[in-house]
């Protein structure tokens, strides 16, 4: 699977944008890339979900894994621009409590 696009913002935040379906295959790609971002020394990560069509438990697992990795090195992982399907699945699993959604990737670390 092709890697998802990433960019770095002026405030030292890495934004990753998964495209399509975050199921078994997509989640595996995301998990590896999040590991690579943290290993590369970035600990403030935004997952821009605006082009994510679908998420299931595999995709949620990748987000939680990335969140734990970022927190372990003193950073954070935040999600932004969450479509309806993703919001519904986060609510079903109660993960909206640990992964609240921010309106846009560029404002997710504004607090």
């Amino acid at each position, binding site marked *: 699977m092709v890697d998802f696009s990433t960019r770095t913002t002026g405030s030292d935040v890495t934004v990753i944008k998964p495209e399509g379906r975050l199921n*078994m295959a997509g989640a595996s790609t995301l998990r590896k890339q999040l590991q690579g971002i943290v290993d590369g020394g970035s600990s403030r990560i935004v997952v821009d979900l605006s082009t994510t069509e*679908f998420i299931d*438990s595999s995709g*949620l*697992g990748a987000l939680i894994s990335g969140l*734990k990795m970022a927190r372990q090195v003193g950073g954070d992982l935040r999600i932004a621009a969450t479509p309806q399907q993703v919001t*519904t699945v986060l609510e079903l699993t109660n993960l909206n409590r640990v992964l609240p959604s921010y309106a846009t990737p560029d404002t997710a670390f504004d607090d």
Partner: protein
Amino acid sequence: MTERTLEVVTGPDTLAELQSTLDSVWATDHVSDYTRMCIDLAVSEIGTNIIEHSGNGQPMNLRMVVTLLPDSISVVLTDDGRPVAVDLSQTAMPGEWSDRGRGLAIAHRVLDELSYSRNDGGNRWMLMRRRSEESHGDG
């Protein structure tokens, strides 16, 4: 009634093939967005479980039959893989810091019925969701 059958040998495209079969069912009749989302999600979860556990990463024969009735949607998935140790009475949602183990809990939550049985040389999963929350021409 609409019925669609898919027969595949499992591989990297299996989840996409399951989804295209569901999409072909959704194209035949009005089904609410929420009901479609529930079935798409449950099939992805059970399909992943089958590929990971029954197939252990190896190719096997998988058959899916989707039946759309006025009051329910059912999906039956059968495979010729190895037996799966599954206890559907234990499908509590894991803690929020777990990065695994939500698949069956999610499927259980979005379906009205979920069952697993082992028959001669194969596994059979039955998924059913009622359409009672839908009002026709709406949603």
